[in-house]
């Protein structure tokens, strides 16, 4: 008989490194408001979550980020992440808004927003990030691996988090992480057999962060998988919350 836990809750504090809030312009999603998001976190045993709104990437960072702040206002468990389009946005204005709202991380979408991920496009943005010690999230599907590798290897002072890494990306994502010590991974789509063990064997636990990409995936299942992967308690703590807390705390 199989041994399963029908009422699973995580055994460590959890800080989800990837959720979204807000309706989408192109499709219906089952959870699009803050109240239901918090209820899901309660059920899943997740204390805090780093949240962005797709509106800020699909349409516009200024309006999307303010939409985000309006939705999560007064909810300390939802930690805002702003989206930025470095080829268009006014960076000083962005900095001001981040400071005002205590925002400690950004998310970019180079392929969708159609700018080359290259120093000649992003140089000033990178200087600004470095000065502000701001980590940047980017979904794996938004990355051209060679371009990303070439550019990031020239910027060891920056911190990147590769997010939503699907098994389609595994062939290049793990070598990329091994080669670039300033890149971390958010594991919402790492569903392959033994993926956490293989990942931690390859790069250690310090750069691995739990995330769910809720509501495009359910929030709790990946925590169940993590808890059944034979990690030490300290590794589990680091992956579920510690690494993300440390990354956002820098600065």
């Amino acid at each position, binding site marked *: 008989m199989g041994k399963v836990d029908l009422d699973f809750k995580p055994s460590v504090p959890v800080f989800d490194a990837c959720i979204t809030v*807000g*309706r*989408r*312009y*192109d*499709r*219906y999603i089952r959870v*699009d408001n803050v109240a239901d998001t918090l209820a899901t976190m309660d059920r899943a045993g997740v204390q805090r979550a780093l949240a962005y709104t797709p*509106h800020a*990437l*699909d*349409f*516009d*960072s*200024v*309006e999307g980020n303010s*939409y985000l702040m309006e939705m999560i206002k007064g909810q300390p468990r939802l930690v805002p992440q702003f989206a930025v*389009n470095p*080829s*268009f*946005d006014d960076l000083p204005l962005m900095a001001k808004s981040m400071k005002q709202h205590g925002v400690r991380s950004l998310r970019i*979408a180079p392929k*969708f*927003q159609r700018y080359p991920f290259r120093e000649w496009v992003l140089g000033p943005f990178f200087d600004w990030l470095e000065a502000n010690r701001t980590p940047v999230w980017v979904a794996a599907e938004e990355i051209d691996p060679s371009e990303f590798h070439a550019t990031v290897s020239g910027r060891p002072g920056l911190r990147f988090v590769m997010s939503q890494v699907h098994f389609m990306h595994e062939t290049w994502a793990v070598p990329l992480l091994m080669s670039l010590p300033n890149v971390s991974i958010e594991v919402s789509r790492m569903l392959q057999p033994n993926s956490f063990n293989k990942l931690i064997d390859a790069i250690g636990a310090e750069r691995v962060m739990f995330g769910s990409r809720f509501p495009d995936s359910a929030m709790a299942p990946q925590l169940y998988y993590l808890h059944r992967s034979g990690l030490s308690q300290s590794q589990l703590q680091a992956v579920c919350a510690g690494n993300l807390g440390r990354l956002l705390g820098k600065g």
Partner: protein
Amino acid sequence: MKTPVVDFHAHVGRWGSFGMADDLETYLRVMDAAGVDISCINCIFYGEAHRNLDSVMPFVKKHPDRFVPVAYVTPRYLQDAIPELERAFGKLGARFLKLYPTYLGKPIDDPSYFPIFEWANDHGIVIMSHSSFFFEGDTLTMPRLFPALAKRFNKVRWVLGHSGNNMNGQAQAVAAARECDNIYLETCTSMAEAGTIEFLVNGAGEDRVLYGSDMPLLDARNQVGRIVTADISDEAKKKVLGLNAIKLLGLKNKS
């Protein structure tokens, strides 16, 4: 030459992902430079229906003589749609309704739209929908879907935004307008093949073509340029630029 110019197709809401801002000062400066009196503005980016018109209203409140509010709803959240229509037309003075099936991912004649069409028909309002038929397969808003709707919901005046977009779509749009006298064609597009305005005016008649720009994505000066430099009569130019819109929307003609 002074003549009323009404921009039937304009937006608010930033689209920084593709380099589009919507600040009021630039908006007015470009309208002035282009000779545009009034812009009919909508916002289509938000799932919550009220947020769209709420983004529009500050422009209207600040310059009620320059901006006309346009409602937007989607059947994806039908529970919001009818109350929003009541609010938009009953309280906020919206002059017509914009629809964008591309974001819904379903065709304009999908039954999920019907409660909205019925409401519009009962109130005899104007609906502008995106329309496009670039290539075989671009079917969600192909102009040839509209005649059946125009016949079924015959109290609605239907405006085909972009008139089908490129030449393939324009041919269908003109055929639709010929078939139904409650179908109108709006001109803006970034395709803009030579001869487009002439084709629309000669095909659908000069009374049923409406100037639009897609501001603040596209510059109104270029889009006005498409009308004034077209090989059509001065009378037709004036109708397309503003007189038709004034009549259709019941605006005051200040001339």
